[in-house]
């Protein structure tokens, strides 16, 4: 231990130690001289004799130094110093190389950080590997939770020490006399927080007492709600709130950043959940987690719970028909699967970019290598082994890689922050954490070091191969094996273009879909429209008629408000999705495209409010949906897929939402609307619009046309609604533009991300091809000079230059086609391999490549033959 400390101290004081040693040896020599003078030699002779007798001064010092620092490390330090000096002398080259590496490593780090956040980070609770998630699965593969009786049955499980159930819903929260606010609420059973290892930061947790049905209503606030409603007042415990119309007292506040299980803003005991006790066995809405007993393993607990599931299947056959109990570790439930093809493709995209950057820098190094031949030749002739030369060149690559890695890290910080901001708060789970942890840094370090070898090895091997004798001759140009180096250069370029083509194919697909969506969205002008959502409480409005009644009364009040020129209610906003239902057509089988259609129920003013003109027929009347007026409107995509002729007047029927419910009555199609996009993901699909009365939604979207200030309009609507029902908040108040943008945030972010990455890859390829071509022209200047002197025309010269570049390009594109095919097969994104998409991608690459070659080609054409010949041959 002391030895390492001493070695470390040496490093700090090495200059002083070196001087001391020199002084010591000088003293030794002086003493020897004195001794020799004393025994009779003349002073001059004595000095020489002393020198001879004592031996090599420098050798002594070197070997002394070797004792402290291993010679290998001394060599490394020397190599790095030399490399740093070289790079400082060539700022242009260094900047381009470091930038290329920085971009590649930055993209990779950003993508890996995101991958890490979604797929690799464990759920942030205490000991998540000891917590299991219990659910059920139906025969058709849909996952469900458990019902309350089933949860109670499981409480007796011996191998599970603690069991908790929770359920997400929305609640309206208000104070006396204020408008209601809609918050995300989770009902959670009393042991819940203890199970995950959390406790309120202020106040107390739920107890079994609070969980009894009929207990006084209590709630625990989330930190953000506490801040916004109570201004972070620590004396909030004991205050009351009105939650869903019930006076509730606050007993605690959770710590900042907790939203278990997803994005909860307020928690209440499970026992307070309305209708819980009466829940039938097949109403499986509870999510259940359990912490394993100390002596139990996951497998034993699973066996015990599955056995319970078997018992339920035999005891309650009807409720458990085709239903299977599933037990998984909680991480598996809440983390994205890292082996899913989409995620693997995601992570690989980052690697692709790194490889492109490395190929780029490798070519840059190869181009620069020519200027180093003389220096390397001198070294070799002075005795440096090839290994030593290669080591030195690799030290240079490592320095570049470190600099690139550092730049990449900085860039990835910006990239991750952009991604963080792009995810809307409404869909985000509290667990999502984009901070860079150990995994990210390890991967960054590994990638950084690997790139040093990836781009550095081949140039190092090629350069160190220079035949010394040839290099030291006057024209050392031919010393670097021309053909072999050119083959490597071509290989790197091929890699670059091939990988860039893969990325461009991805862009093409994403961009095409994105553009079509935007085109479809332009069918109506969203700017004067304001949207908001309302959800009538299920307890107060259990029946559809009661909801419809509320909507009608709301509609009456809104029509009286002067500031709103139009309003409408719908079960979903444009791009807001909607239910999928199977349909039957009266008198003909349903074509395959219409097997499952999207269904939206809208009020009669829907199309006029949106400002959309029907293409044929008419919209509903106010009586739409009541007997005698069972009408539907379809969109043009539906009409186009409809077999036979005109769709107007035909009758259709919708199947019920589940096998148990009966189908709708027969509806007559009275109108055809333009293809307004309804789905957030897919392009325009067939849509059937029903009158609101036929299916008053549990959550309704309200769209108002407001020529004036949207904030004022929102307030107006709130007031009107409050007059009808004080516990009914409006929420997600957004201009229509933003609502559509938020609905398709996923598509938008993907499009932006892949476009950015592709542009980066394209720029790298451009720079790569430019560097290689420019360098090749510089190499061939004497040859070109001869040709020009012999009468070759400018275009012939240009063609000579371009020919090689085109050859490399062709190889690259061919390889790219193969790679894209492999990628699309591997990751099932077969859309990427469409001819139009690929042709577009290749066209872009060709155009960019030609642009890159333009400057060197023109320079070649302008070569002055006299100068070229003088310098060259």
């Amino acid at each position, binding site marked *: 231990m*002391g*030895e390492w400390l*001493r*070695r470390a101290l040496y490093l700090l004081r090495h200059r002083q130690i070196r001087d*001391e*040693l020199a*002084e*010591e*040896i000088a*003293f*030794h*020599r*002086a*003493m*020897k001289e*004195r001794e020799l003078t004393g025994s009779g030699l003349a002073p001059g002779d004595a000095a020489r004799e002393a020198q001879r*007798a*004592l*031996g*090599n*001064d420098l*050798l*002594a*010092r070197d*070997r*002394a130094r*070797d*004792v*402290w620092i291993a010679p290998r490390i001394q060599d490394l330090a020397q190599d790095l110093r030399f490399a740093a000096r070289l790079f400082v002398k060539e700022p242009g080259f260094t900047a381009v190389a470091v930038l290329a590496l920085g971009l590649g490593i930055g993209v990779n780090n950003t993508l890996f950080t995101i991958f890490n956040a979604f797929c690799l980070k464990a759920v942030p609770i205490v000991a998540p590997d000891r917590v299991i998630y219990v659910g059920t699965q139906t025969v058709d593969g849909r996952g469900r939770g458990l019902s309350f009786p089933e949860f109670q049955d499981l409480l007796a499980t011996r191998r599970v020490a603690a069991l908790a159930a929770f359920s997400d819903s929305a609640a309206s929260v208000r104070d006396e006399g204020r408008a209601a606010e809609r918050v995300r609420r989770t009902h959670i059973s009393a042991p819940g927080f203890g199970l995950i290892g959390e406790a309120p930061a202020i106040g107390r947790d739920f107890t079994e007492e609070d969980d009894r049905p009929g207990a006084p209503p209590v709630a625990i606030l989330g930190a953000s709600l506490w801040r916004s409603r109570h201004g972070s007042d620590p004396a909030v415990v004991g205050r009351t709130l009105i939650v869903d119309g019930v006076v509730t007292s606050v007993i605690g506040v959770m710590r900042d950043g907790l939203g278990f299980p997803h994005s909860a803003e307020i928690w209440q005991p499970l026992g307070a959940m309305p209708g819980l006790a009466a829940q039938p066995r097949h109403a499986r809405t509870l999510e259940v987690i359990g912490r394993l007993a100390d002596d139990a393993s996951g497998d034993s607990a699973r066996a015990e719970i599955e056995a319970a599931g078997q018992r339920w299947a035999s005891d309650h056959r009807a409720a458990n028909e085709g239903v299977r109990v599933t037990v998984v570790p909680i991480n598996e439930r809440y983390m994205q699967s890292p082996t899913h093809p989409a995620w693997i493709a995601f992570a690989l995209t980052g690697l692709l970019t790194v490889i492109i950057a490395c190929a780029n820098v490798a070519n840059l190094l190869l181009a620069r290598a020519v200027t180093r031949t003389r220096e390397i030749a001198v070294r070799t002739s002075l005795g440096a082994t090839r290994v030593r030369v290669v080591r030195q060149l690799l030290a240079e690559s490592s320095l570049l890689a470190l600099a690139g890695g550092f730049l990449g890290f900085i860039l990835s910080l910006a990239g991750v922050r952009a991604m963080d901001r792009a995810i809307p708060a409404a869909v985000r789970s509290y667990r999502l954490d984009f901070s860079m942890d150990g995994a990210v840094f390890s991967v960054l370090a590994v990638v950084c070091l690997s790139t040093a070898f990836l781009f550095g090895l081949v140039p190092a091997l090629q350069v160190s191969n220079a035949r010394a004798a040839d290099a030291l001759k006057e024209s050392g140009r031919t010393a670097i094996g021309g053909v072999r180096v050119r083959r490597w250069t071509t290989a790197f370029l091929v890699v670059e273009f091939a990988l860039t083509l893969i990325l461009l194919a991805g862009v093409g697909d994403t961009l095409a879909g994105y553009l079509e969506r935007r085109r479809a969205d332009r069918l109506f002008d969203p700017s004067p429209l304001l949207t908001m959502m309302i959800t009538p409480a299920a307890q107060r409005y259990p029946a559809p008629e009661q909801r419809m009644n509320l909507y009608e009364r709301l509609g009456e009040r809104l029509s009286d408000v002067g500031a709103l020129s139009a309003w409408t209610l719908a079960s979903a906003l444009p791009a807001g999705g909607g239910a999928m239902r199977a349909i039957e057509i009266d008198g003909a089988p349903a074509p395959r495209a219409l097997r499952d259609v999207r269904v939206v129920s809208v009020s009669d003013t829907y199309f006029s409010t949106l400002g959309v003109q029907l293409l044929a027929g008419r919209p509903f009347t106010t009586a739409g949906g009541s007997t005698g007026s069972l009408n539907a409107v379809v969109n043009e995509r539906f009409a186009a897929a409809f077999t036979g002729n005109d769709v107007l007047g035909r009758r259709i029927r919708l199947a019920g939402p589940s096998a148990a419910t009966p189908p709708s009555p027969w509806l007559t199609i009275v109108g055809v609307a333009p293809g307004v996009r309804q789905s957030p993901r897919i392009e325009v699909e067939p849509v059937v619009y029903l009158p609101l009365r036929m299916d008053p939604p549990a959550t309704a979207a309200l769209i108002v046309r407001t020529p004036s200030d949207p904030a004022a309009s929102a307030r107006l609507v709130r007031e009107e609604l409050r007059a009808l029902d004080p516990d009914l908040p409006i929420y997600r108040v957004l201009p229509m533009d933003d609502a559509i943008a938020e609905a398709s945030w996923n598509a938008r972010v993907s499009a932006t991300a892949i476009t950015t990455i592709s542009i980066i890859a394209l720029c790298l390829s451009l720079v790569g091809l430019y560097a290689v071509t420019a360098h090749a022209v510089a190499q061939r200047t004497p040859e070109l000079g001869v040709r020009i002197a012999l009468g070759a025309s400018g275009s012939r010269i240009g063609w000579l230059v371009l020919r090689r570049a085109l050859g490399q390009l062709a190889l690259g594109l061919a390889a790219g086609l193969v790679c894209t095919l492999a990628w699309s097969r591997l990751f099932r994104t077969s859309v990427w391999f469409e001819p139009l998409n690929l042709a577009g991608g290749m066209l872009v690459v060709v155009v960019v490549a030609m642009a890159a070659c333009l400057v060197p080609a023109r320079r070649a054409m302008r070569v002055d033959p006299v100068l070229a010949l003088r310098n060259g041959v």
Partner: protein
Amino acid sequence: MGANEPPDLLPGTLELLILKSLVRGEVHGYGIAQHLRTVSDDVLVVGESSLYPALQRLLVKGLVKASWGASENNRRARYYALTAAGRRHLAAERKAFDHLILAIHKVLDTA
């Protein structure tokens, strides 16, 4: 080689000899070389290129410590002294060395 290296020393022996030279007190580098030459009747002649690396090795291992002082002729010189660890090491190495030499003698003396 030649005049600068003691003939065929077993590895580590030079350090052992240096440590022994320091038993009586502090000595500087030249003094150690002198001592070795004198006591061995000019057989063990140690040059700078062996002596100083050996001294540095001893310093690294913490077996000696060094300090600057005034020499006989009032020049600044670096004096080396044994540390406690050095003393222990000397005793142990001396024993091991004797043991080894004994073994070599036995082999050479057997017919």
